């Protein structure tokens, strides 16, 4: 009825509604067809979030699988400055937050006053701080879970283990050198989020691949013993630096490796470059009398001299070319054994003259002086051993007694290990194996023979001479009750201003024990100890303390192993119980 009465009005309304529908349909068509991909992308960005999943960085273990470096979860705190700006009590929040974090309030205020959605406040908070902030439920303040490297032993084996940075990238030591094995591969997933940005579910999950674990040859206990003993003498004698290396002479495995000064691996930022310098393999120095082991080995092997041969030591002054050589204690006739025991420079040089420059050089080279030992650590110095054609007329009076030649502490212990190991030179190494996260061995480093320098018979004769150094000679402080010890001391003048200083010395002792069936070889070097500076007085006691305790420890381990074997014997099987 109304339609007939007001046709034009109905037509107008109909046309208006139709136009509305047409507009809607056209708009929908436009949105669905032309704007589809753009709007879908916007929606996807709002709802979906590509999340990167960090892998677990591999653990570094000692030889008994005790962790030296491990990753654990920690929280980092961030602010959303735009959200924080809208909060009425933001000033109070900032002040309270600064108090909890023990930060300067002004600095924190400057950080959160930026026009951004995300600003880091502090990375990797201590657990107590995280819990204190979390309990406050501050608006605009959030947390991100991260993984932090922990070093339970702090400074122990610091120069060997190294440290990783805040982003879990290795920056020093084995952490850096084995970073490609330790770091693993990142994973990812797409997370669906609701309108309030709460995570709902995940899809396209690509799991991260955890990093491989490193198993070192280091023994945590021996390392601790070595560090303690080194530290004690380092402070007692006000040394500028010090190094100690304990090695298994039969395999080349490094059991302990320490330097002073050192640093806390959990606070590397507080250390100086000097603290982080791996002196034992980087620093080279003139070894002095410890180098006489090379001359002695060569002379015995080449049958130039016998232990009982008498050498006249010129009452303390002997001219070699234009240079007059002195002994610290003038002597007359000494047997070759006594020459080494008393560390006579003149006696050793006379033996070296019989041996000849070529053979002295050859044996030094075979003991790998002047070349790298091949240890699996970067930055190893070669030391300096000049070829015979570069020798001056006085060199035959210098090189055989450890002058005009520079060495590293590692080269010394590796050379002494070769003598202990009946002339067989083993490559020193620190990484025993690489394992995946399931414990599967990926790569295993086996002991490697590099050279056979002398016969077993020569080595045994040299053992007896070096045992005499400890029993009757310059290294009496290295004696261990109930254990036979062989070794050699060295007190070398440092070159200061182009001349040998009478106030700056290197004090060295290198030896092994027990003499029969050696288990440990050890070198101890101190740089500029004072007021006492003799290797036999400063370094030998450290050797004694470390090797004595380490042998006791190893023996107790052996006893434990034997008792464990007994426990597993068939007789001790769980018995049938009534």
């Amino acid at each position, binding site marked *: 009825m109304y339609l007939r009465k007001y046709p034009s009005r109905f037509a107008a309304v109909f046309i208006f509604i139709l136009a509305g529908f047409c507009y809607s349909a056209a708009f929908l068509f436009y949105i669905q067809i032309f704007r589809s991909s753009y709007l879908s992308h916007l929606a996807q960005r709002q709802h979906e979030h590509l999340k990167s999943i960090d892998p677990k960085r591999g653990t570094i273990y000692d030889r008994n699988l005790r962790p030296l470096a491990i990753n654990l979860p920690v929280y980092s705190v961030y602010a959303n400055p735009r959200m924080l700006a809208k909060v009425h009590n933001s000033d109070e929040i900032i002040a309270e937050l600064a108090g909890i974090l023990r930060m300067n309030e002004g600095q924190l205020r400057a950080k959160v006053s930026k026009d951004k959605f995300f600003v880091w406040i502090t990375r990797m908070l201590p657990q107590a701080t995280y819990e204190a902030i979390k309990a406050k439920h501050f608006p605009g303040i959030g947390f991100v879970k991260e993984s932090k490297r922990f070093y*339970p032993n702090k400074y122990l084996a610091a120069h060997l283990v190294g440290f990783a940075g805040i982003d879990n990238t290795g920056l020093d030591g084995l952490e850096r050198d084995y970073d490609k094995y330790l770091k693993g591969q990142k994973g990812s997933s797409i997370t669906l989020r609701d309108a309030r940005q709460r995570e709902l579910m995940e899809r396209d999950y690509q799991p991260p691949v955890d990093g491989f674990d490193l198993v070192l040859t280091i023994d945590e206990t021996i390392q601790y013993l070595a560090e303690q003993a080194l530290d004690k003498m380092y402070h007692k004698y006000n040394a500028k630096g010090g190094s100690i290396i304990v090695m298994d002479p039969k395999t080349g495995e490094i059991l302990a490796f320490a330097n002073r000064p050192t640093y806390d691996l959990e606070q590397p930022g507080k250390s100086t470059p000097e603290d982080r310098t791996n002196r034992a393999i980087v620093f080279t120095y003139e070894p002095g009398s410890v180098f006489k082991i090379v001359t002695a080995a060569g002379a015995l092997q080449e049958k130039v001299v016998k232990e009982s041969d008498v050498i006249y030591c010129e009452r303390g002054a002997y001219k070699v070319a234009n240079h007059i050589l002195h002994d610290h204690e003038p002597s007359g006739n000494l047997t070759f054994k006594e020459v080494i025991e008393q560390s006579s420079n003149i006696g050793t040089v006379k033996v070296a003259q019989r041996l000849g420059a070529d053979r002295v050089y050859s044996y030094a080279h075979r003991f790998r002086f002047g070349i790298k030992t091949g240890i699996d650590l970067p930055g190893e110095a070669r030391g300096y051993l000049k070829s015979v054609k570069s020798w001056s007329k006085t060199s035959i009076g210098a090189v055989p007694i450890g002058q005009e030649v520079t060495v590293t502490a590692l080269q010394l212990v590796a050379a002494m290990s070769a003598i202990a190991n009946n002339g067989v030179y083993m490559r020193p190494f620190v990484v025993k194996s690489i394992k995946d996260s399931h414990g599967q061995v990926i790569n295993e480093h086996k002991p490697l023979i590099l050279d056979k320098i002398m016969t077993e018979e020569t080595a045994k004769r040299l053992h007896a001479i070096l045992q005499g150094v400890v029993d009757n000679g310059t290294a009496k402080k290295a004696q261990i009750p109930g254990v036979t010890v062989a070794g050699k001391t060295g007190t070398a003048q440092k070159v200061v201003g182009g001349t040998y200083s009478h106030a700056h010395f290197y004090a060295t002792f290198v030896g092994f024990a027990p003499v029969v069936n050696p288990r440990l070889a050890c070198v101890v070097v101190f740089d500029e100890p004072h007021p006492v500076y003799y290797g036999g007085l400063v370094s030998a006691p450290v050797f004694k303390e470390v090797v004595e305790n380490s042998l*006791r420890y190893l023996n107790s381990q052996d006893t434990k192993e034997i008792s464990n074997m007994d426990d597993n014997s068939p*007789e001790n099987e769980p018995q049938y119980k009534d």
Partner: protein
Amino acid sequence: MSLGSTFKVMVFATATALIYTHMQMQIVEFSYKSKEKQRRIHELQDSNGILTHQILVLKSAKHLGEQLLNKDDALQFIGRDRVMTINAPAPKIPARPSQRPKITTQGPLWNWLSFLSIPEARAFDN
């Protein structure tokens, strides 16, 4: 299409839409619940990590060494000379099940009703 048929189709479509919406809501609800459980697991993992750290620090050679040497700085590893070996008498090994005298039984019904000890039962099975 008649009004009845249209109505049926609408009811069906509405019901289907409602069921679908309900299912979607259920999925979302489960997601929230699973996320909550995931959060709880992460919390437990975190506290486990903190405990692990504390344990590792406490049992580290550095900490143990400092603790023990603070109490007694002359402390040493025990030497073999201090280990006394005592020859204990050989343990008495009880007889194996096969060597045991066979358990006498009273009859099938008694056996079925009786409660043997585990060793007796094993012996009986053998």
